[in-house]
């Protein structure tokens, strides 16, 4: 008789605990999306300043697809282990479509679009490197 309320309590707390444990993942996802937008904006301005508007718009197109890519990657990582869906197919199809359109249209250039697409990687590096360096510093301080 006493077991039943305990079980329901555990069941009621389970989604909350899952939400708590997933907080770090959602935070990383949001940081990556926001960071990609910020880096893309700065690079857009820089490319506009050093090259021209056409090239910077090409870069921006790639950066927009980069955002979509990160969003889809995060969604698929969220579903790993919970759904039986294969990971990876749709994301790469979007990128393939983008590059094919870029090579076929004369107004679009492949290199700025590709580099725009790689904005997410720059964001990840900007996000990870300070944290890993700070982590190493903190560890060495603790060790004396």
């Amino acid at each position, binding site marked *: 008789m006493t077991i039943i309320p305990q079980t329901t309590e555990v069941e009621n707390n389970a989604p909350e*605990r*899952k939400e*708590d*444990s*997933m*907080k*770090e*993942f*959602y*935070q*990383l*996802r949001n940081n*990556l999306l926001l960071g990609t937008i910020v880096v893309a904006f700065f690079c857009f301005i820089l490319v506009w300043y050093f090259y021209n508007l056409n090239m910077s718009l090409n870069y921006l197109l790639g950066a927009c697809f980069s955002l979509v890519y*990160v969003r889809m*990657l*995060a969604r698929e*990582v*969220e579903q*790993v*282990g919970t759904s039986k869906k294969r*990971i*990876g197919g749709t*994301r*790469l199809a979007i*990128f*393939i479509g983008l*590059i*094919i359109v870029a*090579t*076929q249209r004369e107004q679009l250039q*492949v290199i700025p679009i*590709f580099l725009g*697409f*790689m904005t*997410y*990687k720059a964001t*990840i590096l900007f996000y*990870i490197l300070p944290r890993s360096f700070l982590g190493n510093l903190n560890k060495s301080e603790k060790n004396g």
Partner: protein
Amino acid sequence: MDSSLVTAASVVAAGLAVGLGAIGPGIGQGTAAGQAVEGIARQPEAEGKIRATLLLSLAFMEALTIYGLVIALILLFANPFA
């Protein structure tokens, strides 16, 4: 050189770039995802941390496939040698 030979070589190179370039990241992604699921099953309280690490590692690994893909698509649709 004969342009049909260059075209044929480009198509073969594109296939090799994607095919060989996808082997390593494919194995790596599979291993990482499998280990992550195992880790989540063992420590459900660390799910967020594990998934965050998986997200970063998958993003890095898939970039390698993308490099090969870009080379292949350029060879197929904007070949500088043809």
